């Protein structure tokens, strides 16, 4: 090679996966640079002070799936990682009643029993079964998946290991796993529970980020994915990072820098540079070029294969696969700055139940109707909302006495039928506000500021195609062996030295770090073989 490579590795995109990847590469001694298009790192996981003193988690807002070993490998605590637990969950109902969860199994039993004694008992069975399924799948989140198209001895061994792992599992657990991977959340929850509120609450995890309703095939997988996370060994628990998920990505950035990685902000990559089928560098939008023998794309598969790389350099079946890869974002955010706390009429003197998620999804019918709208190309008239008043957990999010509320919204399809998102932005904001106020009547009086984030905004600001929050839908044919395409699910690409490490690779989206971590493992392994 004639040029002197300035870097050993270039990572395109400073989302959390790009940062994790760069940190691992730098830790193992590679001279690594992260190129981030925006003025801040974090991608979908950022915190922005949009109003003086108010920290907005513009996009991503809670944390659970982050792989525990990454915390230690990258010494994240030293750099400021602090995941605050959320001790409550609150689910208002349309009749004015509510379902409440706290940090005690018997408290939860009695709360569910207010709605159904049978469900209260079934909840323990359900949680235990989900725990067993999660325990079975957990090792798969920290391992490079097999390439099903390959007969190489290494891959044959990988497939055998996978078969042995699953083959050793309990029959009931495997049955549940299969149902989750192939079926709907509704089928499973109908088997366990009878009350609408518990089914509505639990099935909400089956729709997040995905264009499915609770009764659609595929919502089982989304439900499973959102249960796989953990806080200190408890599956399905979520926490809130100090200063939001942006606080987390700043921590990862500091760790990456401490290992020697360089981070360049305001540096957009326009193209991969190749020579003889080998990646050698990147061209920046400002015309500069940077060189390295390892180039890692932390962007989604569409951008990795069809925008940064030249599709003509790729096998056509891969190009076809990626062209067909489904994004179809259906999620939005509406974030509020509040002058005080909302009041729930049935609990007029309490606010302690707001120290975690407030789930507006009181029944599966409610969620399914919200989905119906999306099927026909409009946003939900009465949307599903996953809300979180993060200042109840972290006082550094707002000035004293003020609050910030993040609302994750579904369904808001990327492609609207008879309108566009520029026209509909504030209409969506009004709908969300009206929906929340229908449960919390004093809500409208509390609002100091409102920020609406449409799927189009997600695409434009973060770069996630069609605003899909996971960099590609969570559908069984787009997971594991097939994420993002069969044969190319191991972080490599057909272009030598060009790798992928974004949420469009295994295990997928969420603030998880696993794609970045596993890609680094693959890259470092390949470099060693040379």
């Amino acid at each position, binding site marked *: 090679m004639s040029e002197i490579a300035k870097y050993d590795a270039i990572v395109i995109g400073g989302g959390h996966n790009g940062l994790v990847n760069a940190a691992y590469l730098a830790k193992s001694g590679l001279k690594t640079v992260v190129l981030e298009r925006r003025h801040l790192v974090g991608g979908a996981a950022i915190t922005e002070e949009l109003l003086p003193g108010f920290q907005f988690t513009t996009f991503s807002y809670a944390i659970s799936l982050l792989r*525990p*070993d990454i*915390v*230690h490998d990258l010494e994240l*605590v030293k750099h400021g*990682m*602090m*995941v*605050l*637990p959320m*001790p409550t969950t609150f689910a208002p109902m349309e009749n004015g009643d509510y379902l409440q969860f*706290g*940090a*005690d199994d018997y*408290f939860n039993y009695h709360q569910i029993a207010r709605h159904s004694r049978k469900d209260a008992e079934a909840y323990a069975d359900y949680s235990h079964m989900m*725990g067993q399924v999660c*325990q079975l799948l957990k*090792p798969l989140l920290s391992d490079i998946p097999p390439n099903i198209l390959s007969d190489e001895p290494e891959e044959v061994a990988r497939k055998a290991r996978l078969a042995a792992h699953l083959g050793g599992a309990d029959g009931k657990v495997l049955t549940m796993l299969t149902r989750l991977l192939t079926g709907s959340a509704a089928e499973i929850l109908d088997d366990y529970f009878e009350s609408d509120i518990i089914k509505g609450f639990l099935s909400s995890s089956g729709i997040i980020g995905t264009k499915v309703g609770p009764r659609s095939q595929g919502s089982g997988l989304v439900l499973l994915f959102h249960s796989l996370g953990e*806080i*200190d*060994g*408890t*599956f399905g628990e979520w926490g809130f990072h*100090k200063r939001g998920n942006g606080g987390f990505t700043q921590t990862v950035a500091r760790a990456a820098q401490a290992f020697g990685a360089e981070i360049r902000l305001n540096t957009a990559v326009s193209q991969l540079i190749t020579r003889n089928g080998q990646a050698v560098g990147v061209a920046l939008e400002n015309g500069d070029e940077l060189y390295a023998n390892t180039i890692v794309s932390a962007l989604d598969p569409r951008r990795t294969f069809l925008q940064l790389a030249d599709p003509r350099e790729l096998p056509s079946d891969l190009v076809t696969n990626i062209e067909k890869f489904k994004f179809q974002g259906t999620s939005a955010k509406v974030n509020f700055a509040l002058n005080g706390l909302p009041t729930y009429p049935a609990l007029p003197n309490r606010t*302690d139940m707001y*120290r975690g998620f407030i789930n507006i999804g009181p029944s599966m019918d409610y969620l399914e109707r919200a989905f119906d709208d999306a099927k026909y190309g409009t946003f939900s008239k009465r949307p599903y909302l996953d809300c979180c008043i993060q*200042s*109840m*957990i*972290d*006082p*550094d999010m707002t*000035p*004293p*006495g003020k609050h910030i509320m993040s609302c994750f919204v579904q369904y808001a399809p990327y492609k609207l039928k008879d309108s566009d998102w520029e026209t509909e932005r504030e209409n969506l904001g009004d709908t969300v506000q009206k929906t929340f106020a229908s449960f919390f009547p004093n809500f409208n009086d509390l609002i100091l500021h409102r920020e609406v984030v449409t799927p189009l905004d997600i695409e434009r600001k973060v770069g996630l195609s069609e605003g899909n929050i996971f960099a590609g839908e969570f559908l069984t044919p787009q997971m594991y062996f097939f994420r993002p395409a069969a044969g190319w699910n191991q972080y490599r690409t057909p272009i030598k030295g060009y790798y992928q490490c974004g949420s469009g690779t295994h295990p997928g989206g969420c603030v998880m770090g696993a794609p970045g971590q596993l890609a680094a493992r693959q890259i470092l392994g390949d470099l060693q073989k040379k």
Partner: protein
Amino acid sequence: MIKRSPFHPRLVESNETMFWDNWVGYASPTQYQYSTVFEYFSARNAVALFDSSPLFKYRIKGADATRFLSGVLVRDVAKCPVGRAQYTIWCNDAGFVLEDGVLLHVAEDEYWLTAAEPNLKHFSDLVGRQQVEISDISEEYGILAVQGPHSLAVLRQLTKGVAGLRYFGLTETKIAKKPVVVSRTGFTGDLGYEIWVKRDDALAVWDALREVGQGYNLTLMGSRALSMARIEAGLLLIGVDFASARFAWVDAQRETPQELGLGWMLKGLAGDKRPFIGRTAIEHAISHNTARWQTVGLMLDPAVYEEIHNRQGIIAPKADMLYQDTLYVYSDDYNVNANSEYVGYVTSLLFSPLLKRHIAIAKIASGVAAAGARVFVEMEVLHRSQYFPAQITRLPFYNPARKTAVVE
């Protein structure tokens, strides 16, 4: 009936779980809410309020107060001028530790001292002809600990007196119009303050703190959450990490300052000629290097911890894991190596929700206890001993700069 702290009416109203400790005869909340980890994090992320009133409290007053204390306490009180506080210990003649406490120098001839156990007779018997009066003021005052990164912001709304207070400094001021003494001390290892308030003024001060604290997520903290914080801070607890030499039967139950990792209290010993109880024995122990143990931190290897449990088909327990009990420490994994030897014992073990790993305070045999060395902690998994590799480390495990930083 169990005794009640001056804050008791508020403790009762606020304790949603009805879990209580018997702390030296006082009803003291173990936790107020179901989530102890939420209570714990308030001291790391927001501000926590803890009622320390059950501590024994003594006033040592008189022209000879300083001279008296310099003869009975191990740390040199000359280094604690008026307006300062000192964490200190007292020993017996054999140089074994009796107790620890915090000394507040409130006026030229007056000190206040906290203790975990009754000590009125112990100190009074030592006065002799010195001009010192020792009184038990345990029931006269309540003590409230206000701890955490926002503790100063909360207190600043209530009094100007705390601004600029240095680590282990103290000041007399007013909160809610009531006279109080505030020291920058605490048991969490974080930025924090302790407020001494007269019994009758206690509720007014509590209410003022709670009201102002709302905007900062001020959270009530019970003993369990406090224990979590103090283990991370490497702070020893009497009855857990050491026993008072006073009631020990044999020396195996007693520890010297060196053995407790408190040798730093004796740094200036050569230069200061004052006689104090235990001095001769302590000097002998130092010069002959007789320490049997070193008090150290252990950090369990998180990957192996996980793997040992997963191999048995169960989820590795982490959340809510807090032992304040003995666990044995070995030189190797006894299940693999029968020559593995006993090298010491853990006294406190915690899964730190902040550090995301198991940490422990342990006594390790002097020859073995080098920082970085590997030992194995014995714990039960499925009714059988397993040996968890751990690295010896210096205490504390967590030591944020704000704890001692100069803050205005």
